[in-house]
Structure formats: structure tokens, C-alpha cells
């Protein structure tokens, strides 16, 4: 580097480097170190080397929760695709003059704090909640139905929180679709179903991939959704970690649990990168 450039380079890059190293890299390394530590009787972290935390990760209760988390995250992602795709397709390709408004209407609900909105669901679905009120008033049910504290409720909450992450990349991908390609496919005699699977879907696959990544990963960590709507019956990995750092006070175990999340994230990002590479080769 030119000597004259050293000062401006330091001024510009210095602060961000300090923050990224001290508050991103260092803490993550520290968590990795801590996952090999143990605690004394006062719940203080003692720095010795042990694999005990990792052994405990294979405890049957935990394994059940991992399976449950992955299951909930998977179903949430699939539901987001199934609802988000047709929805994005319609609003991205509408000829309506209100297209931009339709797009904004997806975003507006998310300006209210996510906790409040999840609590809104609870108010709606609770035993003395609105849905039960309506159902009883209409005489459809005589006793309130238990909607809360089921994995289905947690999934509704997760889909609700995360669906914009699916809709927005899909919207972008679909909006880029070239009309002439669709016409060409039609003119050459393809049925709508074939046009969809042979032309539209491959061209918008990038949106599905990035959307899925953005739904699946956060889902594993959104502990407050399963707390409020699942009431402890539908714990996610996030809930396990949260408990170790708050009430459980076993930080090393919590650190080891976080390492699982980090590994899952890295794996998925790698897979995504691989897929992305293929997408480029296809000219998407």
C-alpha cells in the first residue's frame, strides 16, 4: 500500500475492523472455547478441558428436541414456499396499478414489534381468546378448543414471523421473469403445467433457495415464538440455549448447544453456495 494511503485507510477501515474482530470473531471463538469448559458448584465457568458438554448433547431428551426443531423448521419452510410462491407470483405479475401498494402491504405488519404480533396470535387463539369466542357464539363448539401449546400453533407463529423472508426474494425472482420466454413456451405448445415446471420454476429457483435459507435458519433460534405459542411443549434448539444462559445457568452446555446451531448454519450456507453455483451455470 502506498504510504500516503495508510492514514485514510486506517481511519476508514479501522473502526469496523475493531468492532468485527472484538464483537463478532472473538465472542464466537470464546463460545467455542467455553463449550469445552465446565462449571463449579457456584455456576462459575472453570477453564479446564472436557468433552462432557458434548456428551450431554446426545441425551435422549435433547435428541428429541433437535428432531422436533428440525421438523418444525422444515415444515415452516415448506409452508412458506407453498403459500409464498403463488402469492408472490400473483402480486409480482399483476398488471394492477396498485402493485407497489400490494408489495407494501406485505411489509407494513412487520413494523409492529414481533413479540406483540405473536402475542396477538395468542390473544386470538387462546382458550378465552377471540376465535373460541366466535366459535362458541356461532354454536359451532360448546367447549373452548385448545388451540395453544401445540406444535401446529408454533408452526403458525413461525410461518407468520418468517414468511416475508420467503415472499420478498421470490417476488424479486419472479418479477425478473421475461414474458417472452413464457410466450415462447406457450407458442411451442407447452401446457401451462409444463411451462411452470420447465421454465418458470427453474428460473425462480434462486428465490426459493435464498428464501428457504432465510426461513429455516432463524426458525431454529426463535425461542420466543415457541415459548409464547407452544408453551414449552414445542421447544426448539433456541429454547434449550436460552435456558442454559438464563435459568439453567450452565453456560458451557449452552455454548456447546450453540455450536450445533453454528454448524447447521455453516452446512446450509455451504449447500446453498453449491446450489448457487449451479444456478450461475444455468445462466440464472
Amino acid at each position: 500500500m502506498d504510504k500516503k494511503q495508510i492514514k485514510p485507510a486506517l481511519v476508514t477501515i479501522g473502526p469496523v475492523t475493531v468492532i468485527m474482530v472484538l464483537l463478532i470473531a472473538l465472542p464466537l471463538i470464546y463460545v467455542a472455547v467455553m463449550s469445552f469448559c465446565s462449571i463449579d458448584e457456584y455456576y462459575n465457568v472453570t477453564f479446564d478441558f472436557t468433552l462432557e458438554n458434548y456428551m450431554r448433547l446426545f441425551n435422549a431428551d435433547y435428541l428429541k428436541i433437535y428432531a422436533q426443531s428440525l421438523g418444525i423448521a422444515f415444515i415452516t419452510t415448506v409452508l412458506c414456499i407453498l403459500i409464498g410462491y403463488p402469492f408472490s407470483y400473483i402480486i409480482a405479475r399483476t398488471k394492477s396499478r396498485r402493485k407497489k401498494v400490494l408489495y407494501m402491504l406485505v411489509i407494513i405488519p412487520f413494523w409492529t414489534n414481533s413479540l406483540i404480533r405473536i402475542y396477538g396470535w395468542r390473544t386470538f387463539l387462546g382458550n378465552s381468546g377471540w376465535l373460541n369466542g366466535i366459535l362458541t357464539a356461532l354454536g359451532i363448539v360448546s367447549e373452548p378448543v385448545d388451540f395453544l401449546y401445540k406444535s401446529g400453533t408454533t408452526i403458525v407463529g413461525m410461518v407468520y414471523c418468517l414468511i416475508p423472508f420467503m415472499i420478498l426474494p421470490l417476488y424479486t425472482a419472479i418479477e425478473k421473469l421475461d414474458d417472452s420466454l413464457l410466450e415462447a413456451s406457450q407458442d411451442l405448445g407447452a401446457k401451462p403445467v409444463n411451462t411452470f415446471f420447465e421454465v418458470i420454476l427453474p428460473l425462480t429457483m434462486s428465490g426459493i433457495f435464498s428464501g428457504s435459507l432465510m426461513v429455516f435458519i432463524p426458525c431454529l433460534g426463535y425461542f420466543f415464538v415457541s415459548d409464547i405459542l407452544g408453551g414449552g411443549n414445542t421447544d426448539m434448539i433456541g429454547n434449550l440455549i436460552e435456558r442454559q444462559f438464563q435459568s439453567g445457568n450452565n453456560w458451557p452446555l449452552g455454548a456447546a448447544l450453540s455450536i450445533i446451531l453454528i454448524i447447521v448454519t455453516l452446512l446450509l450456507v455451504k449447500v446453498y453456495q453449491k446450489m448457487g453455483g449451479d444456478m450461475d451455470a444455468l445462466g440464472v
Partner: protein
Amino acid sequence: MKRKRRIKRNKILGVGFCALVYLFLFLPISVIVANSFNATTTKPYMSWKGFTLDWYVKLWENTSLLEAFGTTMIIAVVSTLLATVIGTLGAIGMYKYKFKGKGLIDGLLYIPVVIPEIVLGISLLTIFSKAGIPRGMITLILAHVTFCIPFVIFNVRARLAGYDISIEEASMDLGANRLTTFFEITLPVLMPGIMGGALLAFTLSIDDVIISYFVNGQTKTYPLKIMESVKSGVAPDVNALSTLILIGTILFVVLTQGDLFKKSSKESGKEETKYEKKKHGKKVFVGNAFSNTVYDARRMWFEDWQYGNR
């Protein structure tokens, strides 16, 4: 004839489907707004007992809630300012200079965007506790600055992509020094990206639950205050405050982006050159930036990553 009828049927199905999705998206918001007028006074404040405006009055007596809201605003403003300054400088530096470890910094910037927030939260908690920094306002601000910086950088970087560095050289050749060039040339050109990043940082900061939950100590932000009361039942005055905030944000958008509701404009920001965009003035872009909430930023980052940086 048959084909026409089928198209019509499909159209009705499509509109119906979208209406259902919008219903799903707005359902809890409507519950919140409606509940802020609910006359019930018994926990958990769920069943409907008639209309009242009491909660909007009671809100002003709930000092701890208002205080928490004030804390949230202070943290949001301070972290936004810091993250915007640090992020903008960083984006410019990383664009202009080649240095060792640039790839590493780039990689680190992606972490807060992809990693589950809870991991970031606990890792900051452990490091703050190790360093002996008492948890409170300071740690909250440090945490918020940290997760906001990448979003500012990606926004500014998107702007830099079309930036012609030779105009800086021209400015220096004409006798301006480095600082004057920075404030007179670089900053104005990058301004839309910077403002977009700042707005995004602000939105992220006021909405953050998970990371704040781990680093807050005794300091309560507005979302954390809500979290506290979730178990016993959120009082309708919280709903009243949320309703007011929602109205405030919508007003802001309508005022800054009024044209959105009038004409259909197919042109998006991307198709305009930066000079045209500048000509159109500030008003339009603030609105646009506001619609680019976190979701857009993440998307932008993915595109950036997918097509540009690899």
C-alpha cells in the same frame, strides 16, 4: 368460451388466495389494535368487554413502559448514528483500498446476517461478562452497533457499485484536499445508500428482541418490557402504545412516499442512474429506503453475495 371461463375462475381463485394471505398477515395486528380499545380490566385481557379509550389515557401513567420506550429510542438513535458512521467509513475504505485480511473482514460481516440471532446474543453475553463490562445501556448499544454495521455496509456498497472514483481524483486535482473531497464529493453521492442503511439500522434496533434479551442486564427496552409481561398477560396499554407506533410509521411512509398511492410506477430505483436519482431528490428515496426493511436488506445481501462477490 370454455377457456375464457377457466381464466376467469383462475383469476377469482388467485384474488381469493391473496386475500386470505393478507388476512393472515394482518390478523394479529387487527387483534392488537382492537384490543387497545377493549374495556376488559381482568387478566389476561383477552375477552372483549366493550369499547373504551381508557387505555390510551392509562398509557401516560405507566411510567415504566414509557421509560422502556424512551430507552429503546435512545439506544436506536445512538446505535444508528454509530453504526452509520462506522459502516459508511468501512464500506468506502474496503472499496478503495486493498489490504491484508480484507477477505476476513468481509466474511465476518456476513456472520450477523446469517447466523441465528440467539448465537450472536449469547456470544456477546459471554464476552461482556468475561471482559467485566456491566450489562446495561452500554452493552446494549455495543450489541446493536455490531449487528447493524453489516446492513449499513451492504447498503452503502450497493451505492458504491456505480461510483466513479475518478471524480474524487478530479476534485483533488482541482485543489481540494482529502477532507473537502470526502464531504463535498464522496458523501453526497453515497447519501442515498447511507440514509437507507441508517433507516434499516434504526428499524432493526427498535425491533430487536433476542440479542437485547441476553445483554440487557437491568435495563429494559420496550420489546423486553413486553416479554416480561407476556406470561401474566400483556395489558391493553401496551397495545395502545403499539397502535400509536404503527400509526406513526404509516403516517411517516404516506408522507414520504405519497406518490406510492397515486400513480403506478414500474420504474424501480435500480433503473435510474445515480444522477437521475439525485435529481428526483430526497423525498422519494427516503420512502424507498423505508420500504427496504430488513427483509429487503437480507435479500440484497444474498444477491450481492450470489452474483457479485463470489
